[in-house]
């Protein structure tokens, strides 16, 4: 039981009470697991991550975090909120949302400062983390001066510096070049090998097998359409096609047009 970090039971959530975003969701997440959430646009992946981060709460059903039911009122309690925020970190889909400070340095240290870390501790972590991510040169720049890849790395740094046990990532590789994508995959695997729980929402099927052991497929009806090991799910072409995760790809071999389903499980 201690190993269970999140437990969602019959969870429903809708925006403004009328636009359903999650429907009958049942998920159990254990400590140290690597999970991917895949699905078409608007299938509720980001909403799920926001709920796991205690930013929104179910309209119906129960969410438990670290063995305790998570309710909005609990996060108004300073002690509980501080512990929860130290334990769970979310990297938002849009780095422009996450980087709201005038400089990269201030953005990265924002989290630990709010959570009461000491100046020495913050400076040490900042130095190590920025060296590891290769972003030391960016510290005094404004986020608006950075490329999308740099912004995404900085956004990840803003969360990693808190040292959360659970790392939630919302499409961390969207729009990135292959090399930056590779760096992010390596980073996630490093975090996972140090015992962190990694939950990633993504469209990039080619990274799923590397960053996850378990995959949840979300359907356009906002329900979980399937879940299983990453190899099982990625082999199920019919399931992936049904949820807009593969497409028919046509290309030419000399004079013959060749057509086949295309999964984006590899770079090409």
């Amino acid at each position: 039981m201690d190993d269970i970090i999140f437990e969602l039971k019959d969870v429903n959530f809708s925006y403004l009470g009328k636009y359903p975003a999650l429907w009958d969701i049942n998920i159990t997440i254990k400590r140290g697991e690597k999970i991917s959430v895949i699905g078409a646009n608007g299938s509720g992946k980001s909403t799920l991550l926001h709920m796991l981060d205690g930013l929104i709460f179910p309209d119906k059903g129960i969410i438990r975090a670290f063995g305790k039911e998570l309710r909005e009122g609990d996060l108004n309690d300073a002690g509980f909120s501080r512990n929860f925020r130290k334990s769970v970190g979310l990297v938002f889909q849009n780095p422009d949302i996450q980087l709201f400070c005038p400089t990269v340095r201030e953005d990265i240290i924002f989290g630990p400062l709010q959570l009461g870390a000491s100046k020495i501790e913050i400076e040490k972590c900042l130095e190590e983390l920025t060296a590891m991510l290769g972003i030391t040169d960016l510290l005094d720049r404004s986020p608006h001066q950075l490329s999308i890849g740099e912004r995404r790395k900085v956004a990840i740094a803003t969360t990693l510096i808190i040292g959360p046990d659970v790392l939630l990532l919302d499409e961390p590789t969207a729009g990135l070049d292959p090399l930056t994508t590779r760096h992010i995959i390596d980073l996630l695997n490093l975090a996972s090998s140090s015992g962190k729980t990694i939950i990633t929402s993504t469209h990039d099927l080619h990274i799923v097998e590397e960053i996850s052991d378990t995959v949840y497929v979300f359907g356009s009806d906002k329900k979980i359409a399937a879940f299983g090991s990453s190899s099982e799910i990625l082999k199920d072409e019919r399931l992936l096609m049904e949820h807009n995760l593969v497409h028919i790809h046509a290309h030419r071999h000399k004079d013959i047009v060749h057509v086949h389903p295309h999964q984006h499980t590899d770079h090409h």
Partner: protein
Amino acid sequence: MFKKSNFIERSLTGALSFIKGSIFAEGYASRIGFLQSLDPRIKAATFLLFLLQILFTKNILVLLYLYALCLMLAQVSRIDLLFFLKRTWVFIPLFSLFIAIPALFSIFTPGDPLVSFSLIGHKLTITHQGLSGAELFVTRVITSVSFVVLLSITTKHFELLKVLRIFKIPQVFVMTLGMCYRYIYLFAEIIEDTYLAIKSRVGTLVHYKRGQHLVAWNIAYLWHRSYQLNEEVYKAMLSRGYAGEPAVLTDFRFKPKDLVWFIFAAIMFTAMRKYG
């Protein structure tokens, strides 16, 4: 909307380029120069002393002396003087039109007549007192504007924001200011992209009325987008432990050079208060 020399297009591109050029250019703040090397807290505090002196003095010579000091500081801080003069004198016509020019005349400043003339059947008299008042006013405006501009172009914006804290501006306001700065750029980019997207679809021949509709629609879109962004950024802050009062780290370093400069400015301030 997009015909050549069209008013809306020119206003839009002009405003965006002004915002990007004036607010976001930090070229001078990154140069190696005298003011750039000072601790921003000391620099801001001494500039505040100069501004107070400008406000209190009624002696035009003191103002001219301070203006000369400002130009000298600009010079030793490797600021292009032509750029600096353009940037500061741009405010003068605005103030002159509404305050300094009317103050020349006996209607607003009675006194000894200097010159009289007729304009559309009305006799107007410029007075000695009016002229010296207007001179004092214009010199005061140009000197204070010059100091403020010099402070802003030789200091990185995030350092200026931190400096506001030493003047006991509540952190929440400082942070809001910082965010405004951050997101103005994002919105300027959205406006630019939207403008290009419209231009690519509609070409250049759009009736000005249709153009006005498009601009109005874009203002509404931007308003909606800023509202959304506001909610999302708040969530991102909560996610990293924000609980109502932001904490910040101040890492300025006080150097002997700062002390020397501060003593110099304090002596000048005291001397000018006493003899000016």
